[in-house]
């Protein structure tokens, strides 16, 4: 599987007037291929998250296209694109993203339940993920009872439950300690080895150690590849 961005740009307009245009992503073309772990680094405000959102089918670029195996994501219907996000992509967004009314295990299984049912195999896979991420004891806890780091690991498990072809992680280790940072990076690396394309936005220099490719972004452009 190959995900390629062709000359994508994203403009934002400050305030409501169209005059104050600001280009967060400026004419970028990159590929993410299966089995590769790609780390995107750069200072905050350089457009990393915007690029990740464009690649993961969450943000329509102002110009350019994103192709998954030759199909333009943003030409698809909402249902088709949603299905790709559900089946082929696993996104770990920034910040806390738990559904408060669901228990930890229900949060993790939610992507599967959106388009069907979670069977026993899925549940044992969810438990395995919890085990690997060292939060197995929190299976039936409510998100409100979890710490920031625990919530982050729950979000990682949720992104991986569907065994997606592409994993997008936006600062996945933002609120983790060193030990857990290493745990998460090696885990994501393992997924890449298993055949997923992994795209990580991070300013953690540790990330480089796990990367097959490191990209540096500055002012909406990829500086170095």
């Amino acid at each position: 599987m190959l995900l390629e961005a062709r000359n994508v740009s994203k403009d934002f307009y400050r305030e409501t007037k169209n005059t104050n245009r600001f280009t967060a992503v400026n004419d970028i073309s990159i590929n993410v291929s299966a089995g590769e772990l790609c780390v995107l680094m750069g200072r905050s405000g350089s457009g990393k998250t915007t690029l990740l959102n464009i690649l993961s089918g969450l943000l329509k670029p102002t110009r350019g296209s994103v192709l998954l195996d030759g199909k333009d994501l943003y030409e698809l219907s909402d249902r088709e694109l949603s299905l790709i996000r559900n089946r082929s992509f696993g996104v770990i967004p920034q910040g806390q993203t738990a559904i408060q009314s669901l228990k930890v295990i229900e949060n993790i299984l939610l992507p599967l339940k959106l388009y069907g049912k979670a069977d026993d195999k899925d549940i044992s896979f969810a438990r395995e993920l919890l085990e690997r991420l060292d939060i197995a004891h929190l299976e039936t806890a409510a998100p409100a009872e979890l710490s920031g780091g625990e919530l982050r690991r729950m979000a990682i498990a949720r992104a991986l439950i569907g065994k997606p072809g592409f994993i997008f992680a936006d600062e996945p280790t933002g609120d983790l300690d060193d030990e857990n940072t290493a745990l998460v990076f090696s885990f994501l690396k393992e997924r890449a080895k298993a055949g997923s394309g992994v795209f990580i936005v991070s300013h953690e220099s540790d990330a480089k150690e796990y990367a097959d490719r490191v990209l540096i972004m500055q002012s909406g452009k990829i500086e170095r590849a």
Partner: protein
Amino acid sequence: MKSLAAKNLKGKPLRTAVLVILSALLTFTVFGGTVIVESLDTGLASLENRLGADIMVVPYEAATQKKFEDMVLQGSTGYFYMDSSKLEMIKNTEGVKRVSPQFFLASTSSSCCSVAVQIIGFEPETDFTVTPWIKKSYGKDLEKLDVVVGNDLNAFVGDELSFYGVKCKVAAKLDKTGTGFDTAVFTTEETIKELIRSSLEKKMNDFKDIDPENSVSCIMIDVADGYTAEEVLNDINLHVKRVKAIQSAEMISGVSDSLSGVSGIIRILMTAIWVLGIVILLLAFTLSVNERRKEFAVLRVIGATRARLGRTVICEALIACLSGGAAGICLGILIILPFNDIIEQMLGLPFLLPDAVSIIKYVIIAVILSALSAVAASGTVAARISRIDTGVILRGDN
């Protein structure tokens, strides 16, 4: 996504409780209000139906002291008499098609466990007002000492009622009319004269100088074609002394005026509560969804379609509003239906509950309205949330 909606509701018990109580109030208002307004309408229709005559003639004092009106509308007891010679005079008035006299008597409450009831006697040969509705409940002619009881009397077919020591048999019970006739007892002229005689013998009644054999209480008149009730009424009031002719239509229009006043107030209140309720629902849904913008963005991230987000919001609203609606209906059924007699007394207007089929119809309408307002209020919010720019929301978190 039904389970997610249910879990979201369960996760915020206070917010859910407010939504449920609010929609219970809305449904109760529309159900209760409709039932009351309809009961008044049915009551009026039934009054029109039961008066049955174009003009009623009563002794002058009975009309001025509102005795007759109270009897018809409130079911209070009373009696008044005039000389039966008036009957002949009226019969000969131009424009009168047919006449039939009635005799009123109030039983005393002297015997244990009974209260004064209005007894109305009619002349079976000429009657055209009471007989049609007795026919409906009881196919046969009344025998001597047979009585027919109004629906609000606690007596049943086959029971024996004693008036002034005369035992009468209940031959039939009339349907409810919502008027004063519901507490009256109807019987033939023959029987009522017997009761009057017995009351005089037992010295339980005092007619002073009135001769019961030659008296009537009220004369019902049907106007002939080609004459207006007004012409005939004026003629009678002018030429027959010490009587008052009352036009049924006028009595009804008096009732109908105060009735439309009451109905109007109820309708305005109903509308006001609904508008207010929908605004509050809209606000509540907007707040509850805005608070969870991030959660909805996450649902998009993991692959929920726009339609699915909308459905989740609408589903939450429907669950809350329909359970509230069910509670509101139960409340309405437990308050309005059993206590309809006290409502009738408080309103002082003809009041007749609609039949079961109509009530079921109002229940369905109220539930549909509550569901519609839930969909309307949550739908706008759902439309907005389904258009959210996921990338922007998640980005704005840094």
